[in-house]
């Protein structure tokens, strides 16, 4: 189980592959992941950049709690959360959640749980810069269910 908060651009595949290298090959049959990417349109407006603020210390703790909660509900072999903070531009990955399990039901349900829990419990906030030069705090998430 691992949680990474990263500043600057990151490659989700590399994080997932490096984490997977620590697992026993053939032990897991299912890997489900989700990558959240910054879009260039939000709420109908063109967005040119975004800054992610977080609460160092609480963020890591809350992400670890979320993984623990998932491990209580599903039979998981491993889980990984990587979340970017600081300034970024459209097209760049914001978050990666990956779950490894024996069977696909656990992986599918747990990876979705991780994302929904992250979006409601982990202290991150997005500030967008619009094409017209103004900036605004994002005030709510898109519904996940």
């Amino acid at each position, binding site marked *: 189980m691992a949680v990474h908060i990263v500043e600057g651009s990151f490659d989700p595949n590399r994080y997932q592959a490096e984490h997977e290298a620590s697992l026993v090959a053939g032990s897991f049959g299912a890997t489900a992941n989700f990558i959240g990417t910054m879009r260039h349109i939000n709420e109908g407006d063109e967005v040119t950049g975004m800054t992610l*603020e977080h609460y160092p210390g609480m963020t890591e*703790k809350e992400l670890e709690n979320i993984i623990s909660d998932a491990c209580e509900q599903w039979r998981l072999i491993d889980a990984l959360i990587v979340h970017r903070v600081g300034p970024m531009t459209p097209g760049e990955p*914001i978050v990666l959640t990956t779950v490894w399990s024996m069977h696909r039901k656990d992986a599918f349900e747990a990876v979705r749980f991780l994302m929904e829990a*992250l979006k409601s419990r*982990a*202290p991150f*906030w*997005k500030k967008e810069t619009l094409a017209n030069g103004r900036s605004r*705090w994002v*005030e709510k998430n898109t519904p996940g269910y």
Partner: protein
Amino acid sequence: MAIQVKFFASLKEDIPDALREVNSEDVATVADVWAAATGIKEPPAHVVCSVNHSHEPVTHPVKEGDEVAFFPPITGG
């Protein structure tokens, strides 16, 4: 005797002059910390609170050495 107080995101911008420390003898709950730090009687309904990195309601008790944080709704991911 001190309680550390943190504000994040839009809240930090909206009340830039709020105190970052309050006296633990003056406050009993998270709501008291808000009032002492901001001079505003109650936190707005959308404000989220934490004590020592755990989500807590405004009625949660506080004590010396605690770190209390206030922030707008979470929008990560």
